[in-house]
């Protein structure tokens, strides 16, 4: 089936099999491999994107469900060569190791900071608890969120 959706502000079309997830369509058909495929069952948050502004796991959304909707992926955050403040904070705080979880965490952290620029430590933990990271132990990710919030 043919779907039309807006990804990072631009209209895209893809020919999808009915069973394909939005994650598969983004990664394999639309040229947005930034969202990652770590568990493909909504447990790890590596594929987090904004669907009409709401944080979702792209692996749990069918490509067909995204037809006619707006999707923002990690590729849509930097502007004109400038990193988004959350991305810059991840770089500065040392929050990136292997980086496979990073795109999802950037999207989830930006979503949190959209709602609150100075979240408490408990709020940060809870907001990011759906995003698994195996390398960092999360400490520097929390630092990055605090840093980005403080700069906003």
């Amino acid at each position, binding site marked *: 089936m043919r779907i039309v959706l807006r990804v990072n502000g631009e209209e895209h079309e893809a020919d999808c*099999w009915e*069973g394909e997830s939005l994650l598969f369509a983004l*990664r*394999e058909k639309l040229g*947005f*491999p*930034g*969202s*990652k*495929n*770590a*568990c*493909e*069952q909504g*447990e*790890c948050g*590596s594929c987090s994107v904004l669907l009409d502004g709401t944080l979702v796991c792209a692996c749990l959304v069918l490509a067909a469900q995204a037809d006619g909707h707006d999707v923002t*992926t*990690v*590729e849509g*955050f*930097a502007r004109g060569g400038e*990193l988004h403040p959350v*991305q*810059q904070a*991840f*770089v*500065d*705080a*040392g929050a*990136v*190791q*292997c*980086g*496979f*979880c*990073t*795109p999802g965490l*950037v999207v989830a952290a930006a979503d949190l900071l959209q709602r609150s620029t100075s979240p408490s430590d*408990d709020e*940060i*933990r*809870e907001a*990011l*608890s759906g*995003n*698994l*990271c*195996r*390398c*960092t*132990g*999360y*400490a*520097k*990710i*929390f*630092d990055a969120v605090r*840093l980005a919030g403080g*700069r906003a």
Partner: protein
Amino acid sequence: MTQTSAPGKLKVGKVGELVPRVDAPTKVKGEFAYASDLIVPGMLWGHTLRSPHAHARIRSLDISEAVSMPGVHAVLTHDDVPGKKTYGLEFPDQPVLAIDRVLYYGEAVALVAAEHPEQARRAAERIRVAYEPLEPVTDMERATEQPPLHAEGPARGHGYFDDPRPNVVRHMVIRHGDVEAVGDVSVSGVYEVGIQDQAFLGPESGLAVPDGEGGVDIYVATQWLHVDRAQVAPCLGLPLSAVRVHLAGVGGAFGGREDLSMQVHGALLALHTNRPVKIVYNREESFMGHVHRHPARIWCEHRATREGKLVNVRMRILLDGGAYASSSTAVASNAASFAAGPYEVPNALIESTAVYSNNPPCGAMRGFGAVQTCFASEAQMDKLADALGIDPIELRLLNALQPGDVLPTGQTIGGSLPIAETIRAAAALEPPPAEELPRDPVRLPGGTGNTTHGEGVRRGVGFAVGFKNIAYSEGFDDYCAARVRLLADGSAEIHCAAAEVGQGVTGVILQVARTELGIDDVRLAPGQTATVESAGSASASRMTWMAAGAVRDACRAALEEQQRRPGEEIDVERIYRHPRTTPLDPQTGQVTGERAHVAFAACAMKVVAEVDVDLGLTRIVWIGAAQDVGRAVNPQQVEGQIEGGTAQGLGLALMEEIQTRDGLITNASFTDYLIPTALDMPPVESVLIEEPEPSAPYGVKGVGEPPTVVSTAAVVGALRAATGRELTRVPVRPDDICL
């Protein structure tokens, strides 16, 4: 406290400076190309059919229906493996594709290449395999009495003790001093460790591209490019030069990418179809796609004087290696070498055995044998302190190893090993005071489950110290190559096949090159087998040390060459080796030369835990770590290794275990195999003990493994203190801590 550099200012500095990672900007933008992101025109998708049995004979295998499915370009079985049918890190005991039997759940049986991954999956379902299930060997204690899974004994004749019992991969005994020596007091215990998974987030992936001339390029997430090539080429029946392995972006490794996953499979499909073939495992398949941490049973007896000096440590270690050897021989030896912990032990009898079984294959994982024994021996030290009425930290200090002391293997510690300083530094860290009630449930055991308001919650403080070796041991020819090109424009290009697996070795290489060459404009060429010799494995906490040595030597040689030939482009390659090690004696476990291990690194940890003893729920409140790091090349990255390594040990203590029933994995998903989340991890306060290692370039030590070695032991120590329970098995289950 995390320091950060000026925002927006990306630079790579010299050794010892805190600088952001060079790969971080592309990673935060989603532009970094991991192996699973690779895509080329005309690419097919590969899929692997795996065994649903832990042990079975294959009666017949029929691919006729699968071949005719839509979109399918190839269906391959062991008949299609043109070269050697088996491979392995240490011994080639594992078939590329099952031949007439399967030895573990998830063993690869056949391959499909198709236009769409779903077509490949559906075609694989139509491959008819007639299995005759056989009784699986699943109990490591009974394995040595059951019929051999590998009758030919692959590990025999390699210089190890030739154990006549069936299913023994390696058996060794370390006899040190008077093995019957008695003390004033003795404490005993039996400890058990479950199977832990590396659970790297980037599943096994790669892309194989045929070159049109019979050769193949493999782009893969791996830890050691050259040893992949050394295993892949013979299976394909090709010379090494026809197989080029390239490092694709790696989404974490932790030991799980030392062994092959899709490398031979992808190359077979690509060569067969003459099309590029990509294979990406999903999470369930990933649990079958790599080796895990060995589950262990460990019997201990510690004898000491009334004053607390250790007299004799006696341990028997049993490790389940699963169906194939992988690196079980080295894990067994490491477990034995570090069994007694970082203590001076005048007499010891340490027996270590790794067995074959039909359980999931086990091999390398962060800590490599030392995790299991640290958990046991630190529990024993607490028990001993209790029996003697001595403060547990004082007991550890009283017995702490120092340079000049002799290990149970007879090796005299030559380099830096500040155990006592590390213990003191961790002991001096002050945890925050217990937070008053009432408080937000997110800061109570059970968290947002809102299961308690503080009633039934007890607090405990645990302490542990552990150590392990850096780099490869026991006579292995361990080296790393680096090549430096000084270009006409004044810049430099470095070639080094060291795998960037997330640990930050790219930054190390660039920092060293800048330091040595005195220029800013240095870049690291993509890692591959064709342009530079082997770097060895990104394993064993060795890559920083080895890459730093190789890049340093190559840079210095390049500058010398430039002096001889001013104005010309320079291209030199150098190989760095660490001080040579020698094997352990197969009868006594004693060193046969000056050393079996080149150097050591330690970590000490204090943990505060709260336990809801009504429900068996835990909350780790705070962790303080002091680590012996030699010299920190990049302090921010070192802290990151300590925090991340601690999290993996905490996971083993509290939640992580691959569960099996008759050898079948029953929890192969992130729904059922739990790893620590942002809500599980407490703040980790870390202190870096910088005492340079004299035999290492710039005095560095590896830093990845020590925190993982010790944090499991320290976390369980805190749970014991909170509950009074013995807690002899990890992961600790809620039932274990309900009072």
